[in-house]
Every structure is written in structure tokens, then in C-alpha cells.
């Protein structure tokens, strides 16, 4: 059955590609194909110990599958961890497709086919139980992403994605080969580990390879280019969905394959393995650097890209700490990020669809023109910034608690300050795009785009009220790792340090709003247009050519202070390495002089060297 599902999706990908001339029909076909993974996830829910409503279960699937292709066997099996991440991807994927039905117009067939292929690869990764199938599906996913990135026709994006994609693939290959040579088996479950340096090196290589997909500093250089130049539905899925695969793989290899006891045997720091601590620190650094760079951007997509980097850093923190609290927080952050970042990228696409502009300084005042898009963005941004009006806060709270529980004195302030930094760039999006002076007379986004955004925002609101449901969702994973699920009721989470009661927050907020309403409706009001502003008495109608929108260079003092520190970033280091390799290449090229005499002399020298070798030997 599982094989048939893969084949069905592949066939639907081909059908979508064949319908290249009819983008909408192709999109609808792909939308149906994109629902398959979601149905698969639901039908597996009972197998991993969750009670989902029975009527949602459309078909029964085998839990594991060994598929022989003649020279190798692919072992696939659903695990709680894989199920959870598949849930994220399978929910974000249909929304991206739904959005693209109206968004993608050129060469739609190729787009949809590549999207489905990337989803197939992701499913394979999440189900893989051995090194070979893991690596193969990883590469299928990576290369279908490349096909999508290529659609941008942007050399920088393609080259940076390609170089880093291959770098990551090679790091992963090296890592898994080391693991294989240590254990002599391909199958994850049969690997028994010794706590030696080889495993440490292997794990470091693997994690740095996955860090490319998970955009951790300093492997993040490709992301801003790719995120800012490709088509929005794809970027939404890439940032919201596919980047999670890096973190899935980190958890898989750190805690399933290698195991916590081996991690701890390399040394611990306050009961957290040094390996995990380093990862957490890199995560915190990523959160900070991503945030600061996001504040400096003017391109809406680049801002979102850097903010994505910053938010993904939190997941790495949680994975690094590795306590039940931290793992729940990391998974929660992964879920939130999937939904809010997909929604934000889709909203950016909707804005572009209507206005044709990406620069924040050229947009403005769309909040009244596209109110539903604005509200979706507002909720997504609440989640991003961790305002306790969406579930975004609960995730960050869990991570903070986990860090304090382990007495991490230096990581926590960095996390906090990155959280505050998120307010800055969030407001830049809100003000620059949706508030302020209206400049475009546009309509609301099309229905399919709105539906996609709102369906993504909805879970954020649900999990705000019931964070306990989320903890239920993750408890199979924690149990699988032998950790105790954190104590909770549907709307409270309790830790050893404090408690968080969402119901109290919501009720108090409602109470506060009632009070504010009472004050607010005490007097009638009239609405004036935006041109009726106090501008030191200067009538704005005299100055039509001057823009009153202050969004260009919005955080200029901030840029002035921070730019000197971020001038020489990771990108320059990578460029230096590239330059060094190029110099090597020049040297290699210089050997081939094009003069036949030289070549003859090479042969002679080689002959003499060999003879010399034999003589010495």
C-alpha cells in the first residue's frame, strides 16, 4: 500500500507536468495529490498511539515496509518522530499548492511536478530506517528543490543553493559512512555505538550537514538568496516545511541512532551533553544573527528569510538541550514555524501578486485594502514574535524554561534579546507593508490564496488555547525516547519552575479588552482619510510628489550601529574558501600548458620518479 502511495504521487506528478499548458487544472490535480500525505498521516495516527477520530481514517496502512530494488533494500517504517514531522509537512504542503493555483502561471507543470517530488523525498526521509534510503531520499528532496530554485533564473540563488546542497550532501555522506564503518550495518536499529571519537566526528559531520537545510549559522548563507528569489509558494514550503527535515534528521541521529548515553559520554555540562550544549549555543547565535540581519533588510522576502533563520535557531536550542521540556519546546517551535512562516511567505506572495513589489519601502497602506491578508499576517506575526495571542509564545516559553532549568546563563539572554529583536522586524513588516500611507489601489487577494493563509493561521490559534493538545501530540515521541512527557492539562503546562495557564491569559485579555471597549465606546468618532495628517500645518495636497511613508531605511540608526559588526559575515568566509579553491584550480590548470614538450617532459619525469621509487624500495 505504501509503495502504491509513492507511485500514485509520482504518477500525479507526471500528470501535473503533462498539464503544463493548463496551470489551473494542473494545480488542482496537484492539490489532490498533496492531500494524500495528509491522509496518510491521519491514518497512521493510531499506530503511534494517538487517538484521532475514526472517521478521519480513510485507509489502513502498513507500519513498515521493506522494499527490495534488487541490489539494496529500502527499509521504511513510521516512527512517532517521523509521524510528527510528516504531519507538519503534510499540512503545509497542500496550503502551498492551494496558494499556487492562482499564483503560478508560467511553466506550472514543472513547478508542480518538482513540488510533488520534493514531498515524496521528504516522506521517504521521514520514514527511512536505514542509511541508504535516508540518503537517497534526502538527495531526491534536495535535487527537486534545486529544480524549483532553478525556476528563479537567478545565478546567485542557484549557485549558492547548489554549492551548499552538495556540501551538505557530502558532509552527510561522510558522516553516515563513518557510522557505517563503526557499526558495520546500514540499518539504524541495528547500530550499537561505542562512545569513541569516530562517532563524535561522524555526528558532528552529520549535524553540520543537516544544519545546511536547517539554516544554522554559518551554513545559512544560501538561504537569503534562495528564499528571496524563488516563487513564494515554494519558498513557503521550503522554509515552513522542508527546513524542518534538517532538525528531524538532527533529532534522529542524535537521539535515536547514536543515543543520549553516547552523547553524554563525551562529557556533560550541567547534565546536558557538551555536544548538545554546543548545538544549543550555535542555535542561540543563529537566532541572534538572523534577527539582527532581518532588521536590516528592505526586501520583504529577504527579511522573512533572515527571520526564518532566526526562528529556526530556537529549534536547535531545544534539540541541543534535549530535556523533555526542551524537546517539547523545539517540536512546538517547529510546528509554529511551519505554520506562521508558511503563512507569512504566502502573504508576501499575495502582496506581490496584487502590487508587483517586493521592497518594503515601496509598499504601504495595504492593511485597509487587503484586510484579511493583513489579519492573517498579524496573527502569523504574533506567533513569530511570541506574543501570547497565538501559540507562538508557548513554544518559546518552553524553551526559556528548559534553558533556565538547566541554568544556562548565557544562552537565555541571547534568546530573549533575539525575541525582542523579532518585534523590530515584525513591526517593519506591519508598518512598511500594511500600515501607513496607502500607495496602491488594489483588491483583496484571490480566494485560494486567502484560504491557504487562513488555514495555516488557524492551528496557531487552536494551539494557543490548548497547548496541552500539542503536548499530547508529542508525548509518543518523548515516550519513544524514554523521556517523561511534561505535565499538562489541555490549557496549562506546568514545569518545575513555573506554570503557564493559557485560559487565564485569554480570560484576562478578554476582561482587559472589555474594559477598553467600555472606555472606547464612550464617545462616537469619525474616520478621516490618511491625507488628513498633522504635518506641521503643511497641506499634503501640495506635496503629492513627496511620499509620507517612512519605511525606507526604517531602522537606520540600528543599521549604523550594527553594520560594522556584520559587515564581515559568514558569507565572506565562505567566499574566501571558494577563492582559495579557485586559486588551487588555477594552479591545476597551469599544469596543462598546452605545449607538447612539457607534456613529454612530464612523462619523462614520471618515468624517472617511478624508477626512483622502485630503486629506493
Amino acid at each position: 500500500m505504501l509503495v502504491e502511495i509513492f507511485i500514485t504521487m509520482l504518477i500525479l506528478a507526471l500528470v501535473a507536468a503533462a498539464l503544463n499548458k493548463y496551470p489551473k487544472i494542473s494545480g488542482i490535480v496537484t492539490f489532490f495529490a498533496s492531500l494524500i500525505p495528509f491522509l496518510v498521516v491521519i491514518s497512521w495516527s493510531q499506530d503511534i498511539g494517538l487517538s484521532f477520530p475514526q472517521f478521519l481514517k480513510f485507509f489502513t496502512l502498513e507500519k513498515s515496509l521493506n522494499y527490495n530494488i534488487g541490489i539494496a533494500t529500502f527499509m521504511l517504517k513510521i516512527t512517532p518522530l517521523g509521524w510528527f514531522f510528516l504531519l507538519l509537512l503534510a499540512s503545509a504542503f497542500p496550503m502551498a499548492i492551494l496558494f499556487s493555483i492562482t499564483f503560478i502561471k508560467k511553466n506550472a507543470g514543472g513547478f508542480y511536478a518538482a513540488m510533488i517530488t520534493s514531498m515524496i523525498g521528504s516522506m521517504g526521509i521521514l520514514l527511512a530506517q536505514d542509511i541508504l534510503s535516508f540518503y537517497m531520499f534526502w538527495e531526491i528532496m534536495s535535487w527537486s528543490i534545486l529544480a524549483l530554485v532553478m525556476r528563479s533564473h537567478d545565478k546567485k540563488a542557484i549557485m549558492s543553493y547548489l554549492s551548499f546542497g552538495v556540501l551538505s550532501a557530502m558532509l552527510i555522506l561522510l558522516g553516515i559512512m563513518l557510522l557505517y564503518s563503526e557499526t558495520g550495518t546500514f540499518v539504524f536499529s541495528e547500530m550499537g555505538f561505542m562512545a569513541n571519537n569516530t562517532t563524535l566526528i561522524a555526528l558532528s559531520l552529520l549535524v553540520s550537514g543537516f544544519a545546511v537545510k536547517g539554516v544554522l549559522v554559518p551554513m545559512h548563507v544560501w538561504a537569503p538568496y534562495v528564499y528571496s528569489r524563488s516563487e513564494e509558494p515554494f519558498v513557503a514550503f521550503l522554509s515552513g516545511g522542508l527546513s524542518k527535515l534538517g532538525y528531524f534528521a538532527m533529532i534522529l541521529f542524535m537521539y535515536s541512532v547514536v543515543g543520549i548515553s553516547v552523547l553524554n559520554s563525551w562529557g556533560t555540562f550541567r547534565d546536558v551533553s557538551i555536544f548538545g550544549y554546543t548545538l544549543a549555543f550555535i542555535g542561540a547565535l543563529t537566532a541572534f544573527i538572523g534577527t539582527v540581519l532581518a532588521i536590516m533588510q528592505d526586501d520583504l522576502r529577504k527579511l522573512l528569510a533572515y527571520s526564518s533563520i532566526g526562528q529556526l535557531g530556537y529549534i536547535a536550542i531545544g534539540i541541543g538541550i534535549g530535556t523533555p521540556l526542551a524537546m517539547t519546546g523545539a517540536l512546538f517551535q517547529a510546528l509554529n514555524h511551519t505554520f506562521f512562516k508558511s503563512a507569512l511567505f504566502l502573504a508576501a506572495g499575495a502582496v506581490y501578486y496584487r502590487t508587483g513589489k517586493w521592497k518594503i519601502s515601496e509598499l504601504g497602506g495595504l492593511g485597509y485594502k487587503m484586510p484579511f491578508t493583513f489579519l492573517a499576517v498579524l496573527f502569523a506575526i504574533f506567533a513569530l514574535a511570541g506574543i501570547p495571542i497565538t501559540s507562538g509564545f508557548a513554544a518559546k516559553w518552553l524553551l526559556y524554561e528548559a534553558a533556565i532549568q538547566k541554568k544556562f546563563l548565557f544562552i537565555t539572554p541571547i534568546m530573549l534579546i533575539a525575541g525582542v529583536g523579532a518585534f523590530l522586524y515584525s513591526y517593519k513588516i506591519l508598518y512598511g507593508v500594511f500600515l501607513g500611507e496607502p500607495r496602491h489601489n488594489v483588491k483583496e487577494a484571490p480566494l485560494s490564496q486567502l484560504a491557504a493563509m487562513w488555514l495555516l493561521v488557524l492551528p496557531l490559534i487552536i494551539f494557543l488555547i490548548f497547548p496541552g493538545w500539542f503536548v499530547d501530540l508529542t508525548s509518543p515521541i518523548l515516550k519513544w525516547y524514554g523521556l517523561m512527557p511534561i505535565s499538562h492539562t489541555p490549557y496549562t503546562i506546568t514545569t518545575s519552575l513555573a506554570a503557564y495557564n493559557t485560559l487565564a491569559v485569554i480570560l484576562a485579555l478578554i476582561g482587559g479588552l472589555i474594559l477598553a471597549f467600555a472606555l472606547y465606546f464612550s464617545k462616537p468618532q469619525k474616520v478621516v482619510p490618511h491625507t488628513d495628517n498633522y504635518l506641521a500645518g503643511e497641506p499634503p495636497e501640495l506635496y503629492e510628489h513627496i511620499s509620507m511613508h517612512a519605511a525606507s531605511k526604517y531602522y537606520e540608526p540600528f543599521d549604523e550601529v550594527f553594520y560594522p559588526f556584520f559587515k564581515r559575515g559568514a558569507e565572506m568566509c565562505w567566499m574566501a574558501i571558494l577563492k582559495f579553491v579557485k586559486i588551487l584550480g588555477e594552479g591545476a590548470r597551469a599544469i596543462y600548458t598546452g605545449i607538447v614538450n612539457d607534456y613529454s617532459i612530464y612523462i619523462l619525469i614520471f618515468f624517472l620518479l617511478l624508477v626512483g621509487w622502485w630503486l629506493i624500495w
Partner: protein
Amino acid sequence: MVMFDVPPVLLIAFPLFFAFLAPLIYYLSKKSIKFYTLGVLILNAILSYFLFFRVMDEGVVYEQLSGFYPPVGILLAVGYLGSILAMLINTLATINYVSFFDEKSHSLRFSMLYMLVTASSTGIVVTGDLFNMFVFFEITAVGSYGLLASKGTKRSYEGAIKYIVLGSIGSSFILLGIATIYGYLKTLNFYDIAARISTMPIEAKLMAFTFLVIGIGVEAEIFPLNGWVPDAYQGASSRVASFMVLGPSKAGIYAIARLIFTLIPFSDGYELALILGALTLLIGELAALNQKDVKRMLAYSSIGQMGLILIALSLHSQIALIAAVFLIVNHALAKSLLFLGSRNYASGILKNPVIGASIFIGALSIIGMPPFPGFWGKWYLIVDMAHNGLWFMISVILFAAIVEAVYYARFLFRGTGNEKVTLLPGEKIAIISLAVLLVIIALFPFLLYNPASNAATSFLGGGP
């Protein structure tokens, strides 16, 4: 499956005979020469299939020629690898010939040379006799000079002359090696030599090995004997370069394999091959990184691939040899595809997505991305190295793969988007068929795995 037992000699004799018959056909009808050549190549390819299946059925096929018994007489010994390569060379030569189909002035000499080189390359991989192999090498080389020069530009002549010079040096070294062996052992039969090589004095053995490595190394594009490669490939037309990659160079690497496995197997030989392979790989890939000219870049990349194959051979283990077979097949398919597509620009990819996808597949396979054969080759190679703990070499290979990815990306996306694409229909057919072959092997890797596994066993046992 086997319809009739194909004698291996037919594979060589058939095209040779028809090659010499070609002037007659040309005299009768100038236009039909290309159909004639194509027909011969197709027939030969079909013969090679039969031979392949025969070998798969019966194991190694021996055939004595001219009535003398070995070790005096000439022996043809078609092993598993030989039959795979014979099939590969003949099939791909046929496909590649399709790309020449649209040329207006289809000269007699070209057709003859083409058949000649095909036949002699096949000869190298099916022979069981050292001197015989030398003769075929000479024929291959002479034919290749002509083919490389066939473009008729200054550059192509220059490249061909460089090849002639280096090829002559190589030939003389081979001859020296043969002489050394013959002087001590009084035989040129592979089996005979292999059986009695231990009786040779060590100095003579080393001397013979050195001479032969250098001589064959020129053909097999091993650093530092491969000076002719970039110039010759750059000068030749892309289709000829494609043919060179799939034919003579594969025969050369087969000869190297025979040398280090059958003829003079000793541990330092493997070590030397490993070092040479690594050097060839690194220098080839690094040189390709900055290369602007596409054909020259592909030539450097070819060098790198040869190094990779040599590394695989030098590990002399079952899995590594399987990897080597995969890499050889992958290189023959994908690199000739890329050479054929080297005139296609990024804009062409957009205009013709099928061609674009084919070239993309070729590049992916060369870089070693799953599920294409290049991946399986590298995978098995790295698995074997991981077994042996050759971490440094693994790093070198992976580093080379990154470099490869970078310059292939440049290759795929080069051009400003305004170039006129002038791929001929024949070239397109050839490109697509090669891509289809790659996909078939990608989907059904066991088709290649099982013969490769047999070949590896046979080679490790000292057979062909």
C-alpha cells in the same frame, strides 16, 4: 535468451571488414555511406549483446585464432567486464554515430576511421594477448588521430598532433614493456604471463610494470601522462570528443585494470594506482573549476572521472570493483551525453525542456546524485573505503564532488540567454537516448549490478 554463440572475433572482424569495404560503397553511392556505417554499427552492437549474454551464461569465453594453441597463438578471452565494455562501446558508438547523421559532407575517411576505432576499442577489451592488445592500441590511436583532426580547424590539428606525439611515446613504452616481458618469459599470453610472472626477477617485473603503466596511462588519461587530453578534446568537435570518451578511453582503463589485476599484481602497484588516481581526480576537478571553455572543462572533468575509476580499481576488492564498473558505465554514458550537449546553452534548456532535463540528468549522474548510476558507483566506492578506513581518500572524493557540482552548475547555467541553439536533430536523438539509458540503469540498477558483481569476482580471481 542466447540465440547463437557469437564468436568474439566476429566483433572485431566484422567492422574491420566492412570498414575496408566502405570505399566500394562510397564509390557506388556517396549518400548511402552513412546508412551503411550505421547499419554496420547496429549489427555489431547486436553481436555484442549476444556476446554479453553468452558470457553471462557460460562464463569467460575463449577463442583461439589462426589455428595455433596458446601460448603461441593469439587468444581472445572475453570476461564479464570485457563483455560489458564491448556491449557498452558498441552501443554507445552506434548512438553517438546518430549525432553525425546530419553532417552534409559525410566523408568516407570519417566513416572508415569511426568503424576502425570502434572495432579496435572492442578488440582491446576482448583480447587475451598482450601483443594483440598493443596492436589494437595502435589502431585505436591512429584512428583517433584522424577523428580528432576531422574537424579541420587549426585547433583540432594541434590537438591531434599533441596526441600523436604523446601517443607515440606511449606506444613505444608499451612496446618496451612487452619486450621486457617477452625477453624473460618468452610469452605474450595474459594467462601465461600471469602464471609465470613470479619467476621474473623483481627488477624486470618493476621495469615492465613501469613501461606498461606509462604506455597505457597515456591512453587511459592518467595524470601526468594526459597532457594531450584537454587540447585534443577542446580542438575536436563535441561529437568526436564524445566518441573518444566512450570508446578509446574506456578501452584504456580496461587495459590498466588488466595490467594491475592480471598481469603484474603486487601491492605497490595498487598503492601507486591509488596515489595516481587521487592525483588525477584532484587535478582534473580543480582544473575544471575555473575553466571557461566548455569542452576543455569537460575534458578536465573526464580526467577527474578517470582518476576516480582508477581509485576504485586500486582498492582491489569486490565492492570497489563493482563501483568501478558502475563508474565506467556512468562516465561513458553521462560524459558523452554532456559532450554532445556542450553546445546547448541555458536558454536552450528553457526552449527544449526534454533536452534540458537530459543534460541535467547527465550532470547529476556525473556528480553522483541518486538514483543515477554515478551515485551507485560513488556509494559502493565510499562504502568500501569506509570498510578500509581510507578517510582521507573519502574526503578527497567528496571534496572533488563539491567542486564538480559547482562547475557543472556553471556549465548548466552558462550563457546570457540570447544564444542561438544549434543542436542538430541527430544530436538531440543521441542525447535523449543516452539519458534514457541513464534513467533505465537508475531505475533498475541490478541490471548492471549482477554482471558487475560477476566481473569483480572474475577479476579478483585473476581472470579477464
